């Protein structure tokens, strides 16, 4: 990789005494604009879109991908990737469902167990990647298969039926919202806010960017690279364990083996549309969540317009190309103008 050239906004930032890039990037502003346009258009063409129930269900369905995207953003900022989150989600979801149906445990212990389990699986990834010094994409391809095996063994070729509504407060139902706003969505917003502040203003967060920019330079500058990389993957697993709770709460009383399928690519898509660079060193959780919101809006819109559901994925593909393409053009422009 070539040495990173300072973007113009960083140059002006230094001149005015700031060292951080501006709090909202251009990509995020454009995303907000596109989402606003889509919402207006959808409201005009399908009156059902702006109804409270439609929006509430959109926000609840947004939450799992949004929560996982926080962890994935941290991982991608360190120039890594985690393909195994769909399998982790499956393991956490089936363990949660079994605990709820068989032991009748309360919500709090179940959530804690699931998060601990996710964190453990994520830590396995992190250990292999940071101490085994192996490309993240290969390791997580491998562990995805292993975790999937574990999940399917726990399923034991049967769906889990009759899941009690213990986690209803995270779901789309009446129990899951206050003043019309779903708890699952609020949970996601709080987590995003925490992650945003941490990544921007805490040394640990800045170290993640440093590692993604140039791992060796970070190491030489005294950053404990291995520990930071390990904790990024463990955090991702932990958040996947939490997302599994929202997935179960948002589903029916039956859980089948397809849970989580395709979520790894959906989460990566959200992160990438949000302007996080897969080369590492650049990105924000705000963008990732906006990316997830854009994808969910399109999915909802396509359904409500009566178009074939699968058409939504075509738009996801186009959005990825447009978002990353715009970023590439901006970068090229920045490089030539400095």
């Amino acid at each position, binding site marked *: 990789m070539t040495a990173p050239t300072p973007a113009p906004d960083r140059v002006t930032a230094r001149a005015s005494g700031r060292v951080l890039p501006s709090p909202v990037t251009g990509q995020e502003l454009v995303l907000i604009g596109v989402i606003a346009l889509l919402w207006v258009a959808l409201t005009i063409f399908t009156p059902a879109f702006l109804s409270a129930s439609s929006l509430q269900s959109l926000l609840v369905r947004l939450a799992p991908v949004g929560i996982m995207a926080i962890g994935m953003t941290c991982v991608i900022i360190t120039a890594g990737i985690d393909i195994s989150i769909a399998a982790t989600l499956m393991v956490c979801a089936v363990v949660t469902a079994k605990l709820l149906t068989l032991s009748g445990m309360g919500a709090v212990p179940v959530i804690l167990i699931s998060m601990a389990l996710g964190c453990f699986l994520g830590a396995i990834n992190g250990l292999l990647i940071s101490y085994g010094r192996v490309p993240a994409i290969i*390791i997580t391809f*491998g562990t995805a298969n292993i975790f999937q095996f574990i999940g399917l*063994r726990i399923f034991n070729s049967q769906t889990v039926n009759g899941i009690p509504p213990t986690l209803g407060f995270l779901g789309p139902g009446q129990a899951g919202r206050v003043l019309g706003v779903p708890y699952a969505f609020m949970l996601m917003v709080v987590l995003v806010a925490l992650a945003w502040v941490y990544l921007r203003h805490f040394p640990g967060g800045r170290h993640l960017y440093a590692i993604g920019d140039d791992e060796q330079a970070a190491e030489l500058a005294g950053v404990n690279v291995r520990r930071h990389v390990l904790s990024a993957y463990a955090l991702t697993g932990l958040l996947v364990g939490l997302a599994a709770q929202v997935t179960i709460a948002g589903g029916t009383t039956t859980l089948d083996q397809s849970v989580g399928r395709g979520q790894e690519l959906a989460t990566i898509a959200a992160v990438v549309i949000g302007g996080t660079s897969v080369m590492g060193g650049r990105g924000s959780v705000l963008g990732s969540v906006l990316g997830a919101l854009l994808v969910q809006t399109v999915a909802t819109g396509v359904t409500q317009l009566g178009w074939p559901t*699968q058409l939504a994925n075509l738009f996801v593909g186009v959005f990825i190309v447009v978002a990353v393409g715009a970023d*590439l053009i901006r970068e090229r422009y920045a490089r030539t103008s400095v």
Partner: protein
Amino acid sequence: MNTETREDQTQTPPQPPEKSGPSARLSTLGRALLTNRTVLLVVLLALGIIWMKALDASGYLSAPYDLSYMTSSLVNLVPLTMLALAELLVIVSGRGGIDLSVGSIVSLAGMMFGFTYGMWGWPLAVAILFTVGFGALCGLVNGVLVAYLGFPPLIATLATYYAYWSLALVINQQQPISSQPVVDLYGLSESVEITGLKGIIPGIPLGVFIFLLPTVVVVWLLISKTSYGRKLYAVGTNDTAARWAGLEVARTRAMAYVIAGAVAGLVAIVTVSQFASARPDAGTSGNGMALPAITMAVLGGVAITGGLGRVVGVLLAALLIVLLNAGILLAFSGNAGSQYQLLMLGLILVGAALLNGITMRKYSGSNR
């Protein structure tokens, strides 16, 4: 990308001080196992078959694990190995090369084949050419995005994975095409006896001869006997050096994606004949075809950093996975078999990756 961490598999690593006697022979063997992927895969393959034979002999398997069972399982080898070769080309092309979209191209090109051959009654040869060409066109989109516009390959092919997947499902309202001409193609996946070897070697699936072997030979000739192949490895090893050497970096890299797309188009025809139906989810159902194909390529010693990888490694890796999978199916009843296949694939992949890391640190002089 750190170019200094690369090492050539075919090249012998710096020799440590010579020792004599059996310990020296042992350490030579150990080094060969670690540094030469072909040796490792051959040993693993032999161990796997011996292990399965042992299980068979002690009565753990539900059916005999014999030569005829092993050759009949080769039918599963055809599509995945072809796609693994496609991934070989793309990964070797460097700059984080990877193609997540091959499974979706299989689905979409398969639907195109279903339309042209099964519904519009085009002649078979024309329909096949059209399907392969269509696959190449899908690959061209990837190639242009990656090589000319500078998209990270993971992202570009993630986008086209979604786009092609969606188009394949929407184009015929999610319905498969199984008209009579398509059903008649089922014969292509039957087993044939080789004349002269009748009775010695059991029937081998026809697809191995008419699809897999030609693809293997063409890809092998392409990367080891043509100037394009040398350019591809040069571009994959070091972008900048290749540019200064006067190579058309973008065109060489884009070509890898185009060929991968064409191979995926050919795989589409294989899957249509195996299912006797053009299914819109042929390459994307379940875990899809792209991830197993990438797994095989990586296991075969293709370095994800580019510029490194051989056809024989990919073939051995594919053979290892297919034969072990077939054995596992006999060892476990019901769904458990396919689940243990996942476990084995994951463990082998993680093991191979860790081994690569150790090899690099031990023998290449770099501590990364």
